[in-house]
């Protein structure tokens, strides 16, 4: 995990930024709708994984999708592209 610098002497000679999950924090807070997967309908085609802009879908052992809700922005591409409509977008409760 990359640490926020505390002192000037912690700085590199020029800004070098290291790979970080959540560079913008928990982007899951951005969403209004969340995708819900119906695993009995899911055919393991992995299209949702291919098309997710945020890399929050992981392919599990059996190729079914696992969604990281800490970072999912709720764009709805996965639901829109699922050929069998196994993913539906559900409004987040307040």
């Amino acid at each position: 995990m990359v640490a926020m610098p505390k002192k000037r002497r912690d700085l590199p000679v020029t800004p070098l930024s290291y790979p970080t999950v959540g560079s913008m924090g928990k982007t899951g807070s951005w969403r209004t709708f969340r995708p819900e997967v119906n695993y009995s309908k899911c055919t393991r085609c992995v299209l949702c994984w291919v098309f997710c802009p945020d890399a929050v879908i992981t392919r599990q052992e059996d190729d079914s999708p696992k969604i990281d809700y800490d970072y999912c922005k709720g764009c709805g591409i996965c639901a829109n592209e699922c050929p069998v409509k196994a993913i539906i977008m559900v409004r987040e409760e307040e």
Partner: protein
Amino acid sequence: MTRMVVDTANHLAGYAAKAARVKVVAAYPITPQTTVVEKIADFVESGEMDAEYIRVESEHSAMVACIGAAATGVRTFTATSAQGLALMHEALHWASGSRLPIVMAVVNRAMGAPWSIWPDLSDSLSQRDTGWIQFYCADNQEVFDMILQAYKLCEDERVFLPAMVCLEGFILSHTYAPAKLPEQSKIDEFLPPYKCGWMLDVDRPYSHANLVSPEWYMEFRFMIQEAMENAKRLIPQVANDYGKRFGHGYGGLVERYKCDDADLVLLTMGTIGSDAKLAVDKLRQEGLKVGSARVRVYRPFPVEEIVDLAKNVRMFATIDRHISFGMEGFLASEVKASLFGQKDRPLFAGFIAGLGGRDVTAETVEKLAKRSLKWTDLGKVEKETEWVDLRE
């Protein structure tokens, strides 16, 4: 074997890039820089120089290609003049902000509009805020020597800044003069292989120069200022080292000539410094106590040297080969700024001379020195800034 040659400063800049074992040159032609890159093209194609010459399609691309190459771990070189330097302005900022030790020869030429191909220092001095170290040369040998010293200095981890070695167009760039080229093995002992503070690397991936918020931007800029301060200390050390190995020196950040007991000191940059020495000799023969000082390093500005020089001098006269419109010559401003905190300051006169390549001879300098001496005796300067030999 040290080799004696008789060659132009431009060609010697090419020799210096070769001697420094530069690996990537990216440049775009512009008068009067062209013969630098033509010489390098010859070296590369003949195999004499083991490097790649990227024939970019503009000066902006030239600087950015050098940035890309330096960020990928090799020593780089470029050269330009006037409009070309101005075109790469934002890239100059990018290079210093990226702390890349790129060295560039700037063949000084007046800025358009209107077109002028003749020398003055407006081009490089307009870039003084970009975080580049700036050297100003008075002869061909100095151009060769300073390019090598620049690499040594810039690749020091206390510096890691780019540098421009400035030489006036036609006066130096196209004039043949003798020069000594040291033996390559001795140069290799002086200048070790390329070093940089960072480099693109697949084993340790990072993004360079992405967005920095107000939280940290100021600290990165402070570090550049610190590096400039370090450079000020290290420039004489590198010069001493070079002088010991190769036998020539130029007297530090400011080259003094007969200043010890001078009433009037003429402050100059570039080749006008040489004319000033001739004028000083002539004036001394007439019993007038005049000395001259050539500012060889403009960034970092040699504040301490100027303060020291001003002790016991009654009058400073600066000769600026450029003008900052709406104010005065840059050398005049910065000399005055250096002295502001001092209790006792000499009288000050600023002269503007030689714009657009108008000739500045020893006679010109002698004349303005005599005017300055008159004001010294009066205890009052007639005009704070005077344009020399201006037509009515």
